[in-house]
């Protein structure tokens, strides 16, 4: 039993921290906020060189075959930096291709993802705000050449830079996952403007969009369990990023409480402020336990891995909301300004709260598992 990071994991964390501190300064993040594409090609390539994009991919495709714990370590650091970019959607989609793809599909996509030449994303949500795969209404009908997809996907992360979209759709056989070219006929992307400018989401409308038979990922009708597994992974990844953002907010609040003086003393000497900070630390530490337990459970294929993923998303979602909110409060007026960097992390955490199922959604999943 060892809850601490191994030396290699600690090394990964340190090098991620160092890289992001250098390349993803608040100023750099702000530049990307204003960038139409929203991400930096140069940073993406460097991440590929650091081995981040292939972190959990098989070695045959240029990856390092590491686990969810390592991914969570990176994601926590990215959350801490409010790093914009399609990193997590891409590695999550890569996971789907690795799990369900044919050799040809893996060759086509996994190596380019590892080298930073391709980006990918999964279009989970349909028109309904319902993360359950069963709720998907987008349909695929057989045609002479393969399939035609119709429906509307919402809040698809980083679709505008993706080389390939993973689109689940209903077929007569059941839920099926398709690899769709974003440039395909009948497909329109509509970027949404979000509160967090580091979160780029788009709606994807499919009007009889044609795909070939070779675009089916895995067997037709078999996508349900795969999507559920991806959602668990997504929940843990999002929780890890929220943890990083929340810890950054806590650090900023504590740092500020030590130097800001009112009534002739540092505000951190007032219990109302100090106790808030103590409560924030408690929630951040519990979040750490939740994230890494869940990540480990996924890697170890522990019996409770889906449950742990839901616990992490539900707990950390609530915790990050409170910690980030209290960080603004501790800062007073400066925390409400655009100039001050706190809102970079507040907004990053907020955006992730709603993704891959919010806390209410995961609490319901928990109850289904433990109160059947």
């Amino acid at each position, binding site marked *: *039993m*060892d809850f*601490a990071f191994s030396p290699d994991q600690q090394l990964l964390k340190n090098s991620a921290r160092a890289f992001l501190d250098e390349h993803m300064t608040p100023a750099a993040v702000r530049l990307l906020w204003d960038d139409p594409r929203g991400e930096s090609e140069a940073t993406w390539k460097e991440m590929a060189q650091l081995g981040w994009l292939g972190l959990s991919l098989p070695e045959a495709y240029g990856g390092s075959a590491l686990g969810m714990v390592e991914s969570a370590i990176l994601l926590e650091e990215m959350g801490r930096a409010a790093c914009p970019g399609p990193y997590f959607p891409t590695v999550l989609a890569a996971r789907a291709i690795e799990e369900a793809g044919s050799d040809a599909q893996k060759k086509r996509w996994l190596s380019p993802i590892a080298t930073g030449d391709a980006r990918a994303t999964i279009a989970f949500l349909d028109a309904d705000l319902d993360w359950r795969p069963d709720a998907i209404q987008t349909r695929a009908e057989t045609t002479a050449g393969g399939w035609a997809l119709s429906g509307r996907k919402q809040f698809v992360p980083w679709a505008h830079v993706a080389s390939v979209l993973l689109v689940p759709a209903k077929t007569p056989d059941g839920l099926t996952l398709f690899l769709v070219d974003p440039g395909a006929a009948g497909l329109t992307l509509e970027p949404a403007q979000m509160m967090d400018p580091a979160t780029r989401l788009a709606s994807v409308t499919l009007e009889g969009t044609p795909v070939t038979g070779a675009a089916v990922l895995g067997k037709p009708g078999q996508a349900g369990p795969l999507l559920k597994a991806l959602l668990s992974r997504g929940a843990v990844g999002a929780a890890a990023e929220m943890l990083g953002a929340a810890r950054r907010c806590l650090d900023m609040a504590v740092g500020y409480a030590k130097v800001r003086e009112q009534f002739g003393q540092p505000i*951190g*000497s007032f219990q109302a402020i*100090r106790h808030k900070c103590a409560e924030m630390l408690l929630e951040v530490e*519990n979040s750490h336990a939740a994230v890494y337990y869940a990540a480990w459970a996924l890697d170890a294929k522990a019996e409770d891995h889906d449950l742990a993923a839901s616990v992490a998303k539900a707990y950390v979602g609530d915790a990050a909301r409170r910690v980030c909110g209290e960080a603004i409060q501790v800062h007073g007026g400066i925390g409400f300004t655009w100039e001050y960097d706190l809102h970079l992390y507040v907004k990053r955490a907020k955006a992730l709260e709603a993704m891959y199922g919010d806390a209410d959604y995961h*609490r319901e999943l*928990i*109850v289904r598992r433990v109160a059947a």
Partner: protein
Amino acid sequence: MDLTYSPEDRAFREKTRRWLDVNVPKDDAKTLDERKAWHRRLYEAGYVGMLWPKAYGGWEATPMQQAIVQDEMARAGAPPAINGLGIGFIGPTIIVHGTDWQKQRYLKTMLTAEEIWCQLYSEPNAGSDLASLTTRADDQGDHFRVNGQKIWTSSGPIADWGLLLARTDSKAPKHKGISCFLLNMRQPGVEVRPLKQITGSSLFSEVFMTDARAETRDLVGSLNQGWAIAQTTLGYERGANSLGRVTRYAIAFSQLVRATKELRRGGRPLLEDPVVRAKLGKIYAELEVQRYAALRVLSSLQKGESPGPASSITKLSYTEFEKRYFELALEILGPWGQLIAARDEFEEVDTSSGEPGTWATAFLWSRAGTIYSGSSEIQKNIIGERVLGLPKEVRADRLKA
């Protein structure tokens, strides 16, 4: 990072489970004598005093093994061992600061619960600000004469001995004039009056000391070093109950789920009510997080790391969770949750497991954890100052000091 139990720990758990299967008393051990007999069996099996050195009758087990025993006992519904304050805090204090004579005289009978111990710290006017205590012990050459009053003394009515903090130098600054004694509770100068708690039972007490004797050989450490000793007292047996506690929460949770299937509102079981489901989901998520956090603490204890002030985070976390847990449970259960069973007088309660009984008792008991052993507010002060490094608060007694 690897959260699997080692083969040794798994084997140890199996062995413990088998032992408990055979040995847990079939009908609840209710009287003090029955509890002492059960305690003795636990001790002889190696399940009490697990972290104590062998030289003093302990077992030199690992923190993980100790946590596993508590966990299995919770699972089996076994009555807890008794003399928890003695074995958890007072004995270790004697081991660290006591004389050889004290070790010989007191430790073994403490482990076997032949003698029950209590902690004589709090006073009517010295609670969180313990160092302002006024009970005095005056040096009479061969003994100290003790006068004063203690309060909230758990197990006071059944205690044979107490670990006493008393003022031995009234002129020194408040932290510097306190000494630590082992006090015989069975003497004419010591009067114990039980206090009834909000749960209805009388587990703690007032203790009045009128010209009571504390023998000079029962002074722990040097004169006027009592405050430093009291500080180390607070740091022992961390993590012992971490898993057992969560297992008790989980057992209560399955009972809660069962109740939500049986109780109905609006023509359907409570369990089908989305509001009830949301509350259940929230409790369970928090309960699991408590378990993960416990594993994290245990894994670091296992490596010999000392959590230091960070253990305040653990205490704050589970005691505050426990309040939310039973509040939500009572919200869900409505008046059903407030039924209270008439039960036998219960002489000693392990603060970490609480009083056995109904949801109502659990709810009431959950109010204790955020008060004793340093209230939540005090824990937050510690976390703020000693973990986060925030500036100390301006306090009247610091201005004077």
